[in-house]
């Protein structure tokens, strides 16, 4: 067994296996609320709930870490109340691990009138119009109260489609904000603060950010500023550049990535942790994820389709319900969303489990080939960016 690769007070990572060809690795992360096996997909439970499924159902699917959003929870119900409830774990009664983001992303994506200065992000509360200033210190204070196992630094978020001096400004500011976040963390022995690598799509900026941030003593690193509408050709290059410069012994968290193909490719490029609203959101819009794409269950074509979503899926939904019944339910009953959410989370977690097994069993490249064939059918349909990205780490597809 490989010796522990990194050990901090609240996190230790052990590299269990590495793919001989690509940068993929299978690890075991030990966090305050239990071990997490990576590569791992973390479902997003924005407001202290995984939408319509209970904590028990989520645990039953094998989920050991999920996300909560600092921005939303900071607004409602607010940190004081959550403190009274013994943190977010206590409030939602989730005894596995929690990761909270800083609130920065929502600031930019949800709130129109936000102003970023060196101090922090200024915006108007959508609930009462009050003006709020979110500083690195404030974000960490809220996250300390939430009690998440992994907290994210407040970063100066800039859309990946933005170019010019703003990107550089944001990168340097994120470094300064990282230092302020580290200083503000009142529970370094219980809560892990992750840095977020920025720099947009500029290799020089990203490299500079990596150089600086890796000098800070943080238990893990996220790759941020991507998955925001940029071209996939740039996306994967920034991912692989980032993992090239991140320490082997610390987890690499690629934020906002959740499409199956993206997960497989980015594991090959050396990422360990992922989060995305896509699987749970698409469930609520009536779509089920399958190894060959997705089934828009609400479409007429499924009205008389008496097969389960996926005959090879063992989730509670596929064991008992047919596409036809889900189609009948989806128009009028909320339970359809719950059933699809259960399935989609199971799909994501099963995918990660399969990826991990293949790495441990030294057959990851073949897994990737099989995955691509199942997903796209034929070579001509493979997305060129994925082919290129995989080739860059020595995985050739037929």
């Amino acid at each position: 067994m490989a010796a522990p690769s990194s050990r901090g007070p609240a996190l230790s990572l052990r590299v269990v296996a590495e793919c001989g060809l690509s940068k993929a690795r299978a690890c075991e992360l030990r966090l305050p609320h239990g071990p997490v096996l990576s590569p791992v997909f973390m479902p997003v439970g924005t407001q202290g709930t995984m939408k319509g499924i209970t904590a028990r159902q989520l645990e039953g699917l094998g989920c050991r870490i999920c996300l909560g959003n600092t921005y939303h929870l900071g607004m409602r119900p607010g940190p004081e109340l959550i403190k009274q409830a013994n943190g977010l774990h206590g409030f939602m009664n989730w005894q596995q691990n929690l990761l909270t983001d800083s609130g920065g992303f929502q600031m930019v994506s949800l709130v129109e009138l936000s102003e970023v200065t060196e101090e922090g992000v200024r915006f108007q509360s959508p609930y009462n119009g009050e003006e709020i200033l979110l500083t690195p210190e404030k974000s960490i204070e809220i996250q300390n109260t939430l009690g998440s196992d992994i907290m994210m630094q407040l970063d100066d978020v800039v859309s990946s489609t933005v170019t010019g001096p703003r990107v550089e400004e944001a990168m340097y500011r994120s470094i300064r904000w990282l230092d302020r976040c580290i200083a503000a963390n009142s529970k370094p022995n219980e809560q892990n603060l992750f840095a977020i690598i920025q720099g947009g799509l500029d290799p020089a900026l990203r490299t500079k950010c990596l150089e600086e941030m890796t000098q800070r003593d943080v238990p893990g690193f996220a790759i941020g500023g991507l998955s925001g509408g940029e071209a996939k050709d740039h996306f994967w290059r920034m991912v692989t550049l980032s993992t090239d410069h991140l320490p082997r012994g610390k987890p690499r968290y690629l934020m906002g990535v959740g499409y199956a193909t993206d997960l497989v490719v980015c594991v090959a490029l050396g990422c360990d942790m992922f989060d995305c609203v896509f699987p749970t959101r698409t469930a609520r819009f009536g779509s089920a994820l399958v190894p060959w794409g997705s089934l828009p269950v609400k479409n007429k074509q499924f009205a008389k389709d008496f097969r389960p979503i996926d005959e090879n899926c063992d989730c509670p939904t596929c064991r008992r319900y047919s596409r036809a019944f889900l189609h009948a339910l989806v128009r009028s009953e909320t339970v359809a969303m719950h059933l699809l959410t259960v399935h989609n989370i199971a799909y994501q977690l099963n995918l990660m489990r399969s990826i991990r097994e293949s790495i441990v069993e030294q057959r990851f490249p073949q897994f990737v080939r099989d995955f691509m064939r199942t997903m796209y059918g034929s070579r001509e349909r493979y997305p060129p960016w994925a082919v290129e990205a995989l080739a860059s780490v020595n995985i050739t597809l037929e």
Partner: protein
Amino acid sequence: MTCRTLSRPGKRDAHARAAAGASQDVDTACQLTRMKLSLSKVVSGCRLGTLTNLGKNGVQTMELPGCLLYTKTGSPPHLTHDTLQAIKGVPAIVQLTLSTLVELHEVLEEYKEGIGKFIGMPESVLYCSLHDPGSPCPPGYNNNKTVSIWGYGGRMEMTASKFMSMQRALQPDWFQCLSDGDTISGETSRKRAKKSVDRSLFFLDECLQLQEKSPELQDSVMVGVIEGGDMLEERLRSARETAKRPVGGFLLDGFQGQAMAKETKLKLMASVTAELPEDKPRLIHGIGKPDEVLECIERGVDVFESSFPYQVTERGCALSFSYDYNPDPEAAVIKQNGIQDAGKNGTEKGINETSKADPEITSFEIFLKEKRYRDDFGPLVHGCTCYCCQNHSRAYVHHLLVTNELLAGVLLMMHNFQHYFSFFHSIRDALRDDRLDQLKKLIFRQAL
């Protein structure tokens, strides 16, 4: 108390016996002849008993008085199989409603294996009612040949033939016969009341005939429907005539809604049940409040549905009334929670109170969106053993309601169903223990 079995063979039974061959084997006999209602006690008009040999494999049992599991489009609202399993005391019989399933006619005909398997409940005993008890039907659409039901796609006219075609595709264990119950909106003329009886009897005879010719429905039990509006003579006629037919049970229809005065309603109910055979269950729809349930049970009703806890859920409320007629002094204080909270409903008027309770809210529930629950970390109801109360707080459910999260409906439904099913359990206990009066006092004290 001796057990009573079916004593009135009808045309249906004879046919079934012939079809089953000479042997009276439980396995080969149809559900109608197999099913048995055994009364262990009758107290102040309340019947305590058991319905046995239910379902396609004849092994299911239902305790009386009891309720059905309410569903929409074949699913208990908000609940997957897993979350349903976490509820204690789930009734043996599931209620389906034709109105929420009618659009699936073609699909089910192609499926061929029946609604139970289709909805993922192959083991459950299924009863199909005509309408959804939660949704009142617009009046004025029935005629001598058709009854209208409202599906998701709008109004559909059902002839006896179309109705039975649908039942053939559904293959339920029990089903309410096509009936004209359009007597509950405002004043019903004597003529209209008479029509509801005439038509319903006509439909009953038509449907029974069609059932004989339907192999898919040989094992299904028809529930006869007692109509007649608020006219005593019509009610009696309906009861007597319906009882002559080979039905497995009786639905007392037309008692839902506010049109009929309470006194009239209760007197008619008692008169009707007096005309009905003791060994067949009496069902009622659209009456679900605890005090009203008790009133109906005292007048010979056995089976209720559970749309009431669903309606409570939809208005963001949790059932909190006490049904513990055996309080020990300490527990009494705790149980008072439900009564106290309920009593305060409607008097809370915070300055920033933007969430208004549904005007339909009863005194048996608490509205969790009220500000006072924001930092209340106790369970919805102290002592409740449901999943929600064992795992979550009022503050959490309050948060879920304020943020419009789907989980609010899931957790409230789990609590409300369990609370309601437990209430029926306590009714049966009270009857068994001769404590009905205490239970009545307790419940009526909590009714506004």
